[in-house]
């Protein structure tokens, strides 16, 4: 299988690469548009700040590239947030695949929401294999609300989207590459969609 991991200015790119290797898949880490367009699966990882990252993606026209992809695409963490319409993080217009806002957690509990939390109301192929209630690893201060695209929910002050899907675009707020066995299962499920 031909998997491309989108290379850009920030992101935990190596972690995703290593996780795929543990599943027996060697991915291409690349910013080459042709390679990305021709891949069977594309992963858009992310750790970082929304405005800086969007600026970089726009300069390289990677925002329009990502929106135009037709094969299965998996956005992770910041990748998921950038695939939405807008982020409250530095008032940043994003790629807009999912017509949803990304908002900051309200005051109350500690932010970032950091650590292991459960998945609820999971559905779809991404969560095949007894993943209801599974613990996965989150690190984020902003979230996508529960919406028509939600594939899994997690509760932290408010219920929010742990994963979303629209057509060929999949995204997880948690880091499957860092989420132990459940995470490996979810990545493997994505490779099989």
């Amino acid at each position, binding site marked *: 299988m031909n998997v491309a991991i989108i290379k850009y200015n*920030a992101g935990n790119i*190596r972690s995703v690469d290593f996780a795929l290797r543990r599943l027996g898949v060697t991915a291409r880490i690349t910013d080459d548009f042709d390679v990305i367009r021709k891949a069977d699966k594309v992963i858009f990882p992310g750790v970082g700040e929304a405005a*800086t990252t969007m600026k970089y993606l726009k300069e390289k026209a990677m925002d329009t590239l990502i929106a135009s992809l037709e094969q299965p695409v998996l956005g992770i963490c910041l990748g998921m947030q950038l695939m939405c319409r807008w982020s409250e993080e530095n008032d940043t217009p994003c790629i807009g695949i999912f017509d949803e806002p990304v908002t900051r957690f309200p005051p109350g509990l500690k*932010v970032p929401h*950091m*650590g292991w*939390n459960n998945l609820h109301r999971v559905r779809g192929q991404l969560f095949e294999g007894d993943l209801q209630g599974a613990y996965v690893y989150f690190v984020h201060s902003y979230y996508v609300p529960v919406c028509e695209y939600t594939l899994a929910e997690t509760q932290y002050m408010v219920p929010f989207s742990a994963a979303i899907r629209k057509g060929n675009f999949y995204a997880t707020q948690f880091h499957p590459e860092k989420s132990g066995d459940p995470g490996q299962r979810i990545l493997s499920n994505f490779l099989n969609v």
Partner: protein
Amino acid sequence: MLAKRIIPCLDIRDGKTVKGIRFENVVDVGDPVELGARYAVDGADELVYLDITATHEGRKLFADLVERIAAHLNIPFTVGGGIRDVGDAGVLLSAGADKVSVNSSAVRDPGLIDRIAGEFGTQFLVVAIDARNEKGGWTVYVNGGRIPTEKELFSWAREAQERGAGEILFTSMNHDGTKNGFACDALRELSSALTIPVIASGGAGEMQHFLEVFRDGHADAALAASIFHYNEIPVPVLKEYLRKNNITVR
């Protein structure tokens, strides 16, 4: 529900695991990658690797080690020790580290926190603070607890948060190595003063100490080294104990 985290900490010198007892007299306790993998299987929620190497050669070994750790572990890990600029943090991110921790270098150059957080996001940055309770106040120390500073624990922690720390890792030097329990009072105060997660460190000796640090110290995570390395408290046994005492753990 968000689970309380159990974090074994591995001190690394020249690519090997060591544990300082009261910050001195280091003893070798095993291969860092092997130990990390064992902890991951055992249910550790996260790992911290601290490079205590002073030499240039040792630091290069550490970056290589970070890459091997990242290749093997499917849980998050933080690396720290000797990070003095954004470039150092970037090398470790590229090697596969999930977070970096800064300690003395941030005390000397607080703008380092702004720069690392600005470049890689606040979630990538843990600010570690070693402090000793003396004459009624908590004095921040640098250089592995050897040099006292003018800074005070609570104000420094708040400043670090404002500058962009994603988490605070607080080690009580009064408690570290004693195995008499964590600094629960100071931790509770710290936790209520901050809006970011607090990792408690220093003093773990019995399972009850972990219950206390979560229930009374309001810590979000608890870090320990020797009790895990010498298998005095296996992680699965600790988690079962916490679960029975109504602490949410994975």
